[in-house]
């Protein structure tokens, strides 16, 4: 849709090259268009490639930073001094963690001493879809913190499990898990109050809370029971479960 206003009296070149009366042959036109398009392609692909090369190192660095930031939410960097990302072991696909693919567990140490394990888990019974969790379990078996890494819960209803969406900024719902020991879970009290447990859930929106609570409880038990083995494994290896 071209409006007459689009053609301003600034230009003295003919308006559209197509209107020129020459009628060259099809082959000649194809050759010309192919050449021109080729030239443009080379120039602009080069431009893109150049930018790519320029930004690649920065991109790699920021991907790394991104991961550390997520970990930092459950385990502040001041608590450890090792290269966390390098000190990782692979966990097999574990139903207790809600994962059907192998995942990584990072080991935080301070002065060589085990501090905490950072790992992923997943709650599969959220209101809508899976809820991804990142947990940090301290060496004494207490949960350092848990965060939701990704979810699709109903906005405004179930999404308070993510502290960024939680209206109560000073005391987010998910903070109530911090510092709880795994004995609580073993004792069967790692549940929302409605189910007879210890944890709150907001009225009218218990499904998301229940899913996160149950998943984090199960994950905590599983990891806490294997924490010694996990710290002992050499970096880069996979945890081998003995089949009972």
């Amino acid at each position, binding site marked *: *849709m071209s409006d007459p206003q689009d053609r301003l009296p600034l230009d003295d070149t003919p308006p559209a090259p197509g209107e020129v009366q020459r009628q060259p042959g099809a082959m000649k036109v*194809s050759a010309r*268009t*192919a050449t021109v398009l*080729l030239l443009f*392609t080379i120039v602009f*692909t080069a431009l893109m490639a150049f930018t790519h090369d320029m930004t690649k190192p920065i991109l790699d660095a920021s991907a790394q930073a991104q991961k550390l930031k997520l970990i930092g939410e459950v385990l502040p960097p001041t608590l450890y001094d090792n290269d966390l990302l390098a000190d990782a072991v692979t966990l097999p696909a574990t139903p207790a963690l809600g994962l059907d693919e192998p995942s990584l567990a990072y080991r935080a140490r301070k002065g060589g001493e085990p501090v905490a394990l950072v790992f992923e888990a997943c709650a599969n019974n959220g209101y809508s879809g899976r809820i991804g969790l990142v947990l940090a379990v301290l060496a004494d078996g207490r949960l350092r913190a848990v965060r939701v890494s990704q979810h699709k819960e109903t906005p405004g209803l179930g999404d308070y499990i993510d502290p960024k969406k939680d209206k109560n900024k000073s005391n987010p719902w998910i903070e109530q898990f911090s510092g709880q020991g795994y004995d609580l879970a073993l004792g069967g009290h790692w549940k929302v109050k409605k189910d007879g447990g210890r944890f709150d859930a907001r009225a009218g929106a218990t499904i998301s809370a229940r899913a996160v609570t149950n998943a984090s409880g199960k994950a905590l038990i599983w990891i806490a029971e294997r924490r010694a083995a996990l710290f002992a494994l050499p970096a880069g290896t996979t945890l081998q479960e003995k089949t009972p």
Partner: protein
Amino acid sequence: MITALLVMALGAVLLGAALGYAAVKFRVEGDPLVEKIDGILPQTQCGQCGYPGCRPYAQAIANGDADINCCPPGGEDGIRKLADLLGREFKPLSGEHGVEKPKSVAVIDENVCIGCTLCLQACPVDAIVGAAKQMHTVIAPQCTGCELCVAPCPVDCIAMVPIAESMDSWKWKYPVIEIRKAA
């Protein structure tokens, strides 16, 4: 980087060649749009739009050189139809080309006419009959009411007379909704 370049270059050559070839092979002659626009215009051939007739104006609209609101005889109704056809927004009739008038026919005052044939030459639809030194007259059913004959007449004997309503041309009016202010 080299692979990227090569892939892009190959695509460019193929596409460029194909497009150039297609542009020549499948060139469309003529413009059906002009016909459609011309079909909407009232065919008064009055030239009020600034073009020498309805078809040139249609061509100009199709080319995007002219706006759709330059045809006073077509009126708002015509602009609406053009806007519909071209998917443009309706605009009120542009004032510089004249205003919408009731449909009229030219009438020659036969007592005054000197038979100069100037109006015959001006009439785009040959609706005036007569010969040099003879009295002229307008064939009313043929007259489109374009007013082109009025200006050339040296003795000002042509008047535009609005067509009176007859039983055949009478129309039911658009219902006027009277909502009583019930407050």
